[in-house]
């Protein structure tokens, strides 16, 4: 596995050909984090939409309960 474009390197288990360049790892981590938050916000929006469209109070309560942890994540609280 090889990534390109950075200064520091670490090898997986000391094996040749498995160099991971640190800043690339951090960049990938940042991209995944941003994607995660985008997905979380998207899921929250869908849950709000479903809540608005729901016909029964049981469904509405269910959507709200599921929505809360998503909102806490999007707001960077938990």
């Amino acid at each position, binding site marked *: 596995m090889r990534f390109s474009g950075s200064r520091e390197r670490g090898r997986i288990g000391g094996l040749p050909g498995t160099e991971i360049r*640190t800043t690339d790892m951090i960049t990938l*981590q940042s991209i*995944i984090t941003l994607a995660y938050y985008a997905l979380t916000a998207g899921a929250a929006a869908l849950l709000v939409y479903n*809540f608005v469209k729901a016909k029964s109070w049981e469904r509405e309560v269910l959507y709200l309960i599921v929505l809360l942890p998503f909102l*806490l994540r999007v707001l960077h*609280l938990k």
Partner: protein
Amino acid sequence: MTNTDLTRKLLLGALAIVFLSVSGKSFYDHRHLREPVVMGPGVTRVTTLSEYGPTIRGTANDANIYILEGKAPGGTVFVFGGTHAEEPAGRLAAWLLVEHATMERGRLIVALSANRSASTVTRPSAAYPATYTIPTAWGGQTFRMGDRFTNPLDQWPDPEVFIHYPSGQYLAYVDVRNLNRAFPGRPTGTLTERTTYAFMELVRREKVDVAIDLHEAELQYPVINTIVTHQKGQELATMISMTLTDLEGFNIGTEFSPLNLHGLTHREIGDHSQAVSLLFEAPEPFLDATRGRTNADVLLSGRDEFVVKAGRKGLLFAPIDEKGWPIATRVGRHTSSVAQTLETWTEFNADRPVVATNIPRYADLVKHGVGHFLRDPRLASQDRLAYE
């Protein structure tokens, strides 16, 4: 949508906002709780960790670094608590050093929140209390209860396998956020690695002679009531252990840091700097898997009937009875161990002495409790106050 439907949705929505606000506020308050530190007369300078590792500036881990300098030159000892923020005796022992110790010779450098990010979150699904309060004559001081790992809000995601840098050793995935698996770190790594790199730079640049990492452990863990030492500190640790056991009234053993277990302070600080690295372990029944209710009382009293029962069955590596392991006992073990380290180091290294006074010792803590030694921040002048 009928008016009835609309009214119901508005009411349920308002209720959800109330729940969101209450829970969100509790998480926010925990993450942002400011813990006052009254700097004692021994503190001559306060800086932040980013002075040694600029890549953590502005992050949750840019911890305060307290420097206590003696009138006469000598060696340097670095003590840090809060590597694992769910082990409060380490933080509190370091706290008492900052609030009380004064140096006659040499320097003492102290960090109270080595992984400050980990002190802003508790263990998921473990029902930890968010805070705990140490009673004092002036009311009480509240501290953040933390976790073993860096807050996922500050470092995420975890990899499938954590590959330690620079050894390449495979470690558990979650240890990518464990400060005591991420030494010696690197300046461009994860937040945890950048933090350990900054600590390594501190140790190197300040020419630290001895680095002491303060911990607590569950009684079902074999490394407990002990000093773990790098091979460079074997004589020092053995003498500290013997002296403490002889003079202070508590038993503490010595263990040697495994050569091939990487990422830990007692291995990597010794390997990657001039310093001797030691790690002190005190017992914390709160962490035992067999504990009962997980609350602040168990955290501070160290009493738990289920852990006692496990002890009767021979499942523990440290003794326990109905009296438990109170926080004062655990903090006292650490403060006495630090004080004895300074004394023994000075005996062994007369050319680099580190002499301190006013460190509360084990007997003082057991007699008076931790709260007796916490200073009232309301009585301190602003220039002697810091916040963790």
